[in-house]
């Protein structure tokens, strides 16, 4: 499955109410490391159907970024059953990102 673009409007349905764990990638167009991370997130989304991968643009969705206290991007937050369970900040290899799910 492809990465789903999430906004304030569908955040609750796509992330908080998801029955699978969700990797939420907070990013922005001007952020180089975010662009470097994007292919990793795409690959995880394509290859794993046991989780959901979503992308949030922090410039468009500043309320979500503020609510979840994102102070540096790229920031990947793992949600399970509507709760944050883990997060990583900065450009990380795929193994680290998937490691957040453990």
């Amino acid at each position, binding site marked *: 499955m492809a990465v789903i673009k999430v906004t304030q409007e569908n955040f609750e349905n796509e992330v908080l109410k998801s029955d699978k764990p969700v990797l939420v990638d907070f990013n922005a167009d*001007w952020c*180089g*490391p975010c662009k*470097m991370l994007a292919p990793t997130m795409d690959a995880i989304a394509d290859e794993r159907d046991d989780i959901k991968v979503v992308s949030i643009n922090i410039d468009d969705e500043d309320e979500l970024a503020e609510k979840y*206290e*994102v*102070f*540096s*991007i790229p920031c990947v937050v793992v949600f399970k059953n509507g709760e944050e369970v883990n997060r990583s900040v900065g*450009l990380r290899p795929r193994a680290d990102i998937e490691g957040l799910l453990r």
Partner: protein
Amino acid sequence: MRYDILVIGAGPAGMTAAIYGRRANKTVLVLEAASYGGQIINAHKIENYPVAPHISGFDFATKLYEQAKELGAEFVFEKAVSIEDKGADKIVGTPSGSYEAGAVIIATGSDKRKLGIDREDELVGRGVSYCATCDGAFFRKKTVAVAGGTRTALEDALYLADIAEKVYLIHRLDKFRGAEADLERLKARDNVELLLNSEITKLNADKRLESIEVKAKDGTVQTVEVSGLFVAVGRVPENQNFAAVIDLDDKGYANAKEDCLTRTAGIFVAGDNRVKEVRQLVTAAADGAVAATAAVKYLNEKA
């Protein structure tokens, strides 16, 4: 497989070296510990590189990477942890094995220097940052501090003064190295306060940074409430794994002149990890060309 040239580091210096090596028809392997591009991927816009007046750091790095790959350079994403000199053969070790090459170019660049205080690592992304232009936008109308006396510290403080409600600039000394103009511009800002002869001794946080403890040389200690702390205390060259084959200066930079030669025949250094005056994209690329050309000459003379 044995390569003619093994380049350590896929930043602008290393990838330029790979291009020059391939164009001289040598086999080239680039080892990179993180991702291609190096520091430059953090630059929102590059405006001082000849012929590319407005390019993002990401685009610059990606184009350079694609150019090197197209010419036949191979990339492996592993960290080089050692170099063993066996004369005609150089063995480069990684955590999972080793690679053999005729010549090695060390283009590892530098990494951010940390303050080295408790909880610093834990609070990265929760208030502590090393890149004002990357993370400044998250501190709109908030109070932040910049730590350091580097030119970057002054530039960061100026940049943040436009975004944040208040900016403290905290420096161990009472003098700044260079950038007098930036210092004057900072002093003219109402929302910037300089705390000189002072250092940060503690980070106070629950889930995220709430305040910092600042200790002055005269012994006074104060707690300053900040949401963000931007650390700009310089950079550390990443040569520490290679001291067996190259000479380092007291700050850890590789002692090599503009010719990029080291004390070991067949081992060269290129880019920010070398002793030099100007550390810019264009000088990194220049080093890559010089080092690769020297490596090619070395290999051809041996053959």
